[in-house]
């Protein structure tokens, strides 16, 4: 026997949830705005001519991942790109296009993994289904380091050399914009309000405090003196 009060509360909860879902779908499918601007990057206070490597992303709403399968390529003993934004639920391929064996691993709390060692021409992949920052490295070559930003939506922009960026198709609302560089102490943060058919313009400044990210090998220990360069 179901108590009437419990039944009423349950029905009201369902109705509210359905209404909210409907509102959200309407907003997502309706007119959108965009966020554009410029990022000025400095290295310990000195302006850098090249702002590439910075990623701008919005937080505050979720979207399903696209079917695209982004790649982080290993070549010339490095990861390309060095910062890769993906949406939670996307699978990333790690092809080795170098002439030597490489390893890909992450000791991050978001997605720890170890792809073993594999040669030129082979590729392995991992699914990233939880938002977070995933630093990836090669256990053979300590100079290889990159970051995968697993984001809750598809609204991000990779900044070009000139520092310009545009994020299109942003649903109206109050969101938080982050500017991320691997070499800054922490991401730059701005609260913004996006209106339909309008552009939010803003200028950001990111100060990078280092040129490399010190890290341990996959066992959590320093790379040996004999590590390959």
């Amino acid at each position, binding site marked *: 026997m179901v108590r009437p009060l419990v039944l009423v509360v349950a029905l009201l909860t369902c109705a509210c949830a359905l209404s909210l879902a409907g509102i959200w779908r309407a907003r997502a499918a309706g007119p959108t705005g965009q966020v554009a601007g410029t990022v000025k990057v400095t290295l310990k206070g000195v302006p850098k001519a090249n702002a590439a490597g910075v990623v701008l992303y919005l937080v505050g709403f979720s979207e399903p991942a696209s079917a695209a399968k982004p790649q982080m390529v290993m070549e010339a003993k490095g990861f390309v790109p060095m910062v890769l934004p993906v949406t939670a639920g996307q*699978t990333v391929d790690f092809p080795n296009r170098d002439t030597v*064996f490489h390893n890909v691993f992450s*000791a991050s709390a978001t*997605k*720890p*993994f*170890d*792809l*073993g*060692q*594999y040669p030129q021409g082979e590729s*392995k*992949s*991992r*699914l*990233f*289904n939880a938002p977070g920052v995933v630093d990836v490295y090669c256990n053979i070559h300590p100079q290889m380091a990159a970051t995968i930003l697993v984001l809750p939506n598809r609204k991000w922009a990779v900044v070009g050399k000139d520092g310009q960026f545009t994020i299109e198709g942003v649903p109206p609302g109050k969101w938080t914009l982050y500017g991320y560089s691997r070499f800054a102490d922490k991401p730059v943060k701005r609260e913004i309000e996006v209106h339909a058919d309008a552009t939010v313009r803003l200028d950001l400044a990111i100060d990078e405090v280092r040129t490399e990210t010190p890290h*341990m090998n*996959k*066992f*959590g*220990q*320093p790379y040996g003196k004999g590590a390959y360069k």
Partner: protein
Amino acid sequence: MFPFFSVPRMVLAIGMAASAAGLLAPASAYAGRRPYFWVWDTEVMPERGVEWESWYTERISSKPLDQTQVWTAPVVGLTDRLELALPVEWSWWQGSQKTIFDWYGAELRYRIGDPDPDVAGPLTGLVRLAVHRPIRSRSELRLEANLVASYQPSAQCKFTLDAGAVAVTSGSESLLSYAGGGSCKTVGELRVGAEFFGKVPLHSAVGAQPMTMAGPNFSFTHGRFWLTGGALIGVTDSAPVAMPRLIWAISF
């Protein structure tokens, strides 16, 4: 008793030294993978990963059948799903008062399910096939097979069932085995749990009886080192009183 310079004692000493080195290394945990000391698990090495793994097992019996076994093997990840171990085993028997090089062999462990746990889902499996060449019975081989299933509802806990079969080619022995266990993360990288093991002889030249054992387990990982241990306690009269086992491994 062990002669002072016995092979098991030397391997034990090397293992303890390696364990101490692993514990002292400044590291955050990453290498550890097997939470059970008796049940086979579904995790395997990544491709071209290499590990040195050793077990020490004591069989404590009410009859004069006490035994100490040392098992050691390199383990190599052939692919992201298939690993190869090349074990050798020494044992000391109370009856003979001797340390014996028992057997050498090879075993393959194939993970059923994607190596990425987010793709594989909470349920994964493993098939293990092993062949052992006994040193004293040169005309026979010992064949082992296990089918293992693990359920991991969260990163904290894991539950595993393991069904096995053993046959000796001369026909002197054949048996079925069953095992299972659970392990949960507690503080840091320390996991604790429990497991059970039993076997049902189908044919035994020495009159072996069905038996069941159960007991607690723990596992710990630190950097390139992992350690797993526990003790099975005899549940049935036919079982040994206790069978403690310690496993350690170092990844390269």
